[in-house]
């Protein structure tokens, strides 16, 4: 920490810091414990994905895009796919649109629960972190059952999806949804009714509706400030226009909008309920038919190669509108959220937008007081065993 004047100090936090789960650099100007100003620097995990994509064919880009981020690994390739389909005039079968909704909402459930655990951790409740992440396992297991993969799902295909969900698979989905319904009350009690959560999160990290609009905030961050913006409803891509649901803003639960961290928790928790209902509607109404417009990959590639046009793919990822990563638009809103807050509140305010700079995975096992690393072969063997347990 170094002095820059009589009353304020510069406090750098990041890009790697114990209080942050993502590599981002905050340069705070603080007056005692109060934040006066903040400068944000990005790019510490910039991998040149855009350039790499220009060296691949469109189907290869799907697999590249789902590696941008491990939490919304479905939304990235799907937004790309939507753009390609619109540029090339590819019609997606109705059944595929319904399947796309199921996978999208399942990803939202997993992402929001993961975020809830991180939020609990940031304010010191690690037991709640483990409770929520245990709940998330059910969703990840279901993802593996439906797609064959837990994180990078490999389910997206230009013109549809790669795997069907047959009627004999519905009971497993319904069982997982029932599990979440039964446990939702528990989440609500911990995150919304608990006094300590309320004391830490209410009136903390406020983003006004005016600032949310000015800084182009998206997703739960925008909705928690009272901005009714949700691409699923605004434009109704996939089959969303067939379903009965509405914008979720915090006043549904609290009667008013404050735009604070607590309101962001309210929106995400209610959206878990909404996602459960959407998957149920999907299962009830899903039409029969093909799941992809052109199953022959070579024919599809030839068509794409001979097509020119421009298209844009917009979808509502768990963190918000995706035509680029939603965090991209939720960076600047950090400035009004953090200004005038206490240093101690930096972690929960920063994480309240569910930021994602990128995702990397490493596994370490502590065994017999020593540390051993799982190699690729061992992880592969374990994943095959787990899949066989889920899909005997």
């Amino acid at each position: 920490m170094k002095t820059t004047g009589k009353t304020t100090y510069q406090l750098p936090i990041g890009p790697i810091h114990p209080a942050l789960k993502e590599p981002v650099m905050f340069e705070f100007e603080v007056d005692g414990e109060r934040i006066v100003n903040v400068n944000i620097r990005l790019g510490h995990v910039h991998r040149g994905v855009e350039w790499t994509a220009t060296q691949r064919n469109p189907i290869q880009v799907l697999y590249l895009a789902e590696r941008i981020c491990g939490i919304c690994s479905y939304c990235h390739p799907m937004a790309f796919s939507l753009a390609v389909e619109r540029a090339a005039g590819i019609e997606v079968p109705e059944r595929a649109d319904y399947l796309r909704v199921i996978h999208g909402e399942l990803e939202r459930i997993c992402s929001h629960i993961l975020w809830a655990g991180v939020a609990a951790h940031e304010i010191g409740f690690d037991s709640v972190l483990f409770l929520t992440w245990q709940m998330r396992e059910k969703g990840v297991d279901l993802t593996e059952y439906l797609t064959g993969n837990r994180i990078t799902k490999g389910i997206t295909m230009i013109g549809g999806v790669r795997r069907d969900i047959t009627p004999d698979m519905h009971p497993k989905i319904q069982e997982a949804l029932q599990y979440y319904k039964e446990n939702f009350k528990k989440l609500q009690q911990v995150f919304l009714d608990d006094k300590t959560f309320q004391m830490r999160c209410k009136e903390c990290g406020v983003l006004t509706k005016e600032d949310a609009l000015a800084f182009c905030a998206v997703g739960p961050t925008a909705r928690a400030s009272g901005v009714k913006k949700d691409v699923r409803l605004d434009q109704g891509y996939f089959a969303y226009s067939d379903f009965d649901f509405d914008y979720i803003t915090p006043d549904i639960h609290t009667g008013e909008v404050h735009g604070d961290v607590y309101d962001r928790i309210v929106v995400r928790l209610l959206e878990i309920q909404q996602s459960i209902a959407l998957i149920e509607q999907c299962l009830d109404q899903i039409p029969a038919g093909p799941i992809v417009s052109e199953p022959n990959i070579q024919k599809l590639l030839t068509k794409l190669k001979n097509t020119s046009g421009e298209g844009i793919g917009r979808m509502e990822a768990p963190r918000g509108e995706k035509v680029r990563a939603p965090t991209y638009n939720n960076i600047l809103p950090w400035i009004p959220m953090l200004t005038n807050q206490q240093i101690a509140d930096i972690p929960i305010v920063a994480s309240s937008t569910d930021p994602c700079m990128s995702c990397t995975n490493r596994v370490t096992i502590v065994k017999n007081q020593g540390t051993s690393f799982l190699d690729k072969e061992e992880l592969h063997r374990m994943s095959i065993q787990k899949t066989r347990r889920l899909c005997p």
Partner: protein
Amino acid sequence: MTQKQRLNPEELIQSIKDMFTTNIQDARIEKRTMGKKKTEFYHLWIRLDKTIFKEAVRHLQSLDPALHFAVSSGYDLDDTIELVYSFSLYHGVRHQEISVNLTVALPKSDPTIETITDLIPGSLISEQEKQEMLGIMVKNIPKNTRVFIADDFPKGVYPWRRDETGPKKLIRNLHKEKI
């Protein structure tokens, strides 16, 4: 924020054509339907001269004060750099949103464009990104620094360019090199 009377896609295109009579190069409506109910939605694609770009954004904002800027994308097309600014109007009412994409071609001899951060502060990062990735100049940008690429990345190299200023000379095939 109050909104004026909502225009439909045809009226919206017409209002822009009426306002800027000569500098609109192309304007088209992409209409799509989704789901079993065949709900319609619209993307407008408007190609315009950069001299009227900022006024066009101001016009969109006058139609909807809650105008949302999603992102700007950019491409190197040999002699020009093309920028596509993606906006959306009328969000908040189910199925009423209209996407508007404004395309502006910048000649490489003068790759400059006006900032829109004074109208939409949230466009800053997107403008910074286009500067560092495509080598364009955004006039009056309030924060003229790099945002994604590192400070020690060579000056005059732009990762999204396909010409001599592109990243080719920086690319190494690591499998061919002794590390």
